[in-house]
């Protein structure tokens, strides 16, 4: 029997049976007893809930963790089975599968699918950010999976799937690139229930958003390898299946969607990683190229620093520069200078195995906020003073958004108090800057933060952020550059 096929919601007519069946099933599930594990509110509470007392399997989502993608894949799988049960019971298509919202699909696909804007539909949610329900588009800097798909490995804070964390607990600071963009950014941009992990799954678009995140992982899996660490593969998670039966699956049982979970996606895997317009020509510069003497401006010799010539053992990632202070983001563009310590960089370069490619990472350390301000900020390196759209695309290295910050910062919550840390690979950008004579001194990087606004029409940003939050600043404790 052929696997169930998840389809692009924008490839379906607004009254397609797949969408109608979903809307009807949502309505039925919303009318169920909230204590029924197959009800809408119970299924949403499995992700997160503020209701008390907590019921079995509530508050189980995993974020900032290498378990993020697999937990949500399993979560969607069992939710889809429950919804399909409702669809079939109502006489709908027996091959029903959850559609996905590919907001990066071009044209108007970055706008909320029409049935979800219909105020009479069970798919409508009025608390979404202004503009989302009226057809404003998510900008490509939020929706593009390019940063995630370009990562060669799964495990690591600046890699595809996130860093290693405990399987217990929900919110960690090991966010991978897929989880940050587009996942976290789209959550924050849609806002309302979607902006808070404690309520996100109550919005019907949540499930189509996560189907798309799962699809991006599925695309990545076509050419890359999932973790083989037994701590990951052997980890099991519990959910409710059709009929409210409690079930459990391990990560290793969720790696092949067709043979293990009986579903696939409609399009053949196509990975398109757009090359920023300014950097069409690939260059072969490799670190530590920025530091050769002939590239440095002349300067007096440095006094010897440190007690000896041996700089000590090398870590996997070596810090080579940082900002002097913190940055506060209050809805306006902001900039900070990161000074690279030439001695550290030079010592590191001299020690390196020359056959190993150098990588450079930009880290945002100790990111905090009292609550989620609902704004997504783009992060840019050495952006020109009055950047054109090409400049923005070419110097863009990642985003900052704080989905889930409430849970990390809650002083009364049963959650570790910790801050966020985001990490972005900037190797190729630095190579390009050097090749284009835009980073000749090699000792200073200007890192800019700019709020990303919704698009009023394709390619045209709104005049102002959809929401401004000067009273809820995002604090970035330090911006640092690492070498690995």
């Amino acid at each position, binding site marked *: 029997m052929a696997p169930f096929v998840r389809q692009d919601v924008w490839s379906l007519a607004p009254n397609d049976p797949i969408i109608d069946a979903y809307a009807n099933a949502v309505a039925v599930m919303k009318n169920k007893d909230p204590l029924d594990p197959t009800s809408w509110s119970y299924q949403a509470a499995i992700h997160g809930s503020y209701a008390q007392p907590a019921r079995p399997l509530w508050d189980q989502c995993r974020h900032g963790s290498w378990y993020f993608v697999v937990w949500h894949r399993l979560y969607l799988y069992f939710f889809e089975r429950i919804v399909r049960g409702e669809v079939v019971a109502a006489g709908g298509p027996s091959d029903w599968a959850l559609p996905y919202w590919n907001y990066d699909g071009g044209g108007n696909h970055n706008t909320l699918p029409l049935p979800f804007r219909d105020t009479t539909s069970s798919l409508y949610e009025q608390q979404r950010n202004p503009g989302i329900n009226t057809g404003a588009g998510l900008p490509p800097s939020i929706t593009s999976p390019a940063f995630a798909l370009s990562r060669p490995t799964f495990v690591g804070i600046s890699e595809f799937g996130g860093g290693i964390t*405990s399987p*217990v*607990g929900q919110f960690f600071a090991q966010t991978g690139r897929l989880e940050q963009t587009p996942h976290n950014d789209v959550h924050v941009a849609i806002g309302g229930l979607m902006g808070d992990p404690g309520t996100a799954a109550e919005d019907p678009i949540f499930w189509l958003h996560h189907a798309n995140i799962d699809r991006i992982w599925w695309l990545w899996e076509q050419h890359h390898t999932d973790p083989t660490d037994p701590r990951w593969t052997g980890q099991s998670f519990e959910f409710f299946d059709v009929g409210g039966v409690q079930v459990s699956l391990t990560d290793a049982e969720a790696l092949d969607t067709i043979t293990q979970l009986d579903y696939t996606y409609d399009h053949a895997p196509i990975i398109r990683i757009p090359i920023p317009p300014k950097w069409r020509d690939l260059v072969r510069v490799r670190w530590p190229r920025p530091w050769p003497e002939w590239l440095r401006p002349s300067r007096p010799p440095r006094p010897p*620093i*440190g*007690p*000896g010539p*041996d*700089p*000590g*053992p*090398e*870590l996997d*990632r*070596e*810090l*080579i*520069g*940082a900002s*002097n*202070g*913190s940055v506060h983001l209050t809805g306006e563009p902001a900039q900070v200078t990161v*000074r690279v*310590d030439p*001695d*550290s960089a030079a*010592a*590191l370069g001299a020690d390196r195995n020359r056959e190993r490619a150098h990588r450079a990472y930009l880290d945002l*350390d*100790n990111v905090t906020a009292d609550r989620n301000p609902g704004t997504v900020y783009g992060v840019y390196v050495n952006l020109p003073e009055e950047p054109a759209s090409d400049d923005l695309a070419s110097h863009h290295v990642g985003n900052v958004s704080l989905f889930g910050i409430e849970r990390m910062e809650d*002083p009364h919550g*049963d*959650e*570790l*108090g*910790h*801050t966020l840390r985001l990490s972005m690979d900037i190797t190729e950008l630095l190579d390009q800057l050097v090749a284009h004579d835009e980073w000749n001194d090699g000792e200073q990087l200007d890192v800019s933060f700019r709020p990303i606004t919704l698009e009023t029409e394709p390619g045209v940003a709104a005049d102002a952020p959809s929401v401004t939050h000067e009273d809820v600043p995002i604090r970035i*404790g*330090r911006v*640092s550059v690492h070498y690995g």
Partner: protein
Amino acid sequence: MVTAFLPRHGQRLLWRYGPTRVAGVCIAAAWVGLAVQAFQPSWTDQHHGPMLTGHVPDRGVIGGVGWWVVMVVAMMGPAMLGHLHHVAENSLRRRRARAVTLFAAAYLAVWSLPALPVVLLENRVDRDGPVVLVSVVMFAAIWQLLPVTGQGLRDCHRTVALPIIGRVADLAVIQFGRTAGWACVRTCAALMLVTIATGHNLAVMVAVTATILWERMSITPDRTTRHIAVGLSLTGVVLTIGIGIRG
């Protein structure tokens, strides 16, 4: 600057093998010292074995504070390796040993503050009296349930953004060591008192270290502190019953 804190060969050690590995060696050495003390013949003969409660050698105030620091290194050290790694990872390579040294010095300085009253009181209290031991255990149980412990435990997990160059970088790691030390004192001082009340009993020190590690590594601090409070309360009840049976 580093020479102000470490002899030259100590710096080389830190440089060559890395601060966290050196810290591991220090922790192991501290445990060896505690074990050697516990198995000293004069002590074991007096107290019928190394694990019993009783008197500790009179080391004087300076020696007592020094012994307290050794205990802190042994018992708190394992839980602090993450902080040391954070300092190391977020410092320039050439300043790494210096940053870790300053952090450790500030941390131990904070822990040394309660040492003085503890040492002064230690030999004035009749620890053979069971009431003291039961009282301290029950006090530690109640302490686990106070908000100060939960908040201290959360603060134990907090890291800070460290500047990387200059005096401001030195001051930042000192401040971080001070903050981490104070959070640690708030969380663990009551458990340390249990160790003191049992006459620096080696088995109790191992158990308390394991408890501190469990508490520190738990990702649900409130639940963990409740579990520890229950465990301490049961211990207190068992001790009370045992004392009653012995008459």
